[in-house]
């Protein structure tokens, strides 16, 4: 069991997962977003190789209206 904090909310997973699996889990496929792990950007090219570990802090962001 590992715990990840995603946008401030803790979530449990049975086993370590990579970023592609996380994206699937969050139903973000085909959407425009960016993701950082512990303050570091994860480029799209590294989604399948980056394994997320217990305690990782993730931020998943999108563009919204703003001035």
């Amino acid at each position, binding site marked *: 069991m590992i715990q990840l904090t995603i946008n401030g909310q803790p979530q449990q997973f049975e086993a370590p997962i990579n970023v592609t699996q996380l994206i699937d889990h969050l139903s973000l496929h085909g959407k425009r977003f960016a993701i950082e792990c512990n303050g570091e950007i994860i480029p799209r090219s590294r989604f399948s190789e980056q394994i997320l570990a217990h305690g990782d802090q993730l931020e998943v962001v999108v563009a*919204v209206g703003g001035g």
Partner: protein
Amino acid sequence: MNHLIIAGKTYSSRLLVGTGKYKDFNETRAAIEASGAEIITVAIRRTNIGQNADEPNLLDVLPPSQYTLLPNTAGCYTVEDAVRTLRLARELLDGHSLVKLEVLGDPKTLYPNMVETIKAAEILIKEDFQVMVYTSDDPIIAKQLEEMGCVAVMPLASLIGSGMGILNPWNLQIIIDNAKIPVLVDAGVGTASDATIAMELGCDGVLMNTAIAAARNPVLMASAMRKAVEAGREAYLAGRMAKKLYSASPSSPTDGVIASTQTAPKKP
């Protein structure tokens, strides 16, 4: 002559608009079309995890292929948050590096913290971002931001979202006179005449959001702002007449007025 050039790219509109505070995406799109803006600001926020998976996305309505998106750091009060936000924005927008930096100092006034803004600008410029920077209307700070390598300085006309108009045209004038990079008024415009005054001062452009979004009819106000910015720019280029204090000058011929029983008083 009549084009705005920012970081080497040419734009025909000098009006930049935000995308916040609209009723829905339809209104956002209609207002932005009416404004004629080519550069539009967006904010970067956490996505709703597990909620509204089919929610429409702003970028579907305003595609990056059609507009130059200017991600901002609205809501950031620290160097770290501002820099992280723009790194995420660059990843989100496929390496797009033109950004709007603002580091706020106070939630009540949303006044920029210029010490922190300068620190953030330094980091971002080193990382090859093209930084358009929201600043107080201090001419020395504005010059310093230019010398650091910011691609545009954007002094406030008055507080963000206040609609109070141009409170210190004299400072703006000094900033404009000293600048070799574009100067855009950002924040404080309330109505069309405010935008015109900014452009008449010699600003290179105006950035606004609330003045349009909070108007009773945002689409009509967007159209008014487009004309106001164009009018102000043309008046600036045309060069206004000199003011003649307390001295009128008739536009019609003074000779040949029909005979009158009364004679006009002689000039002293």
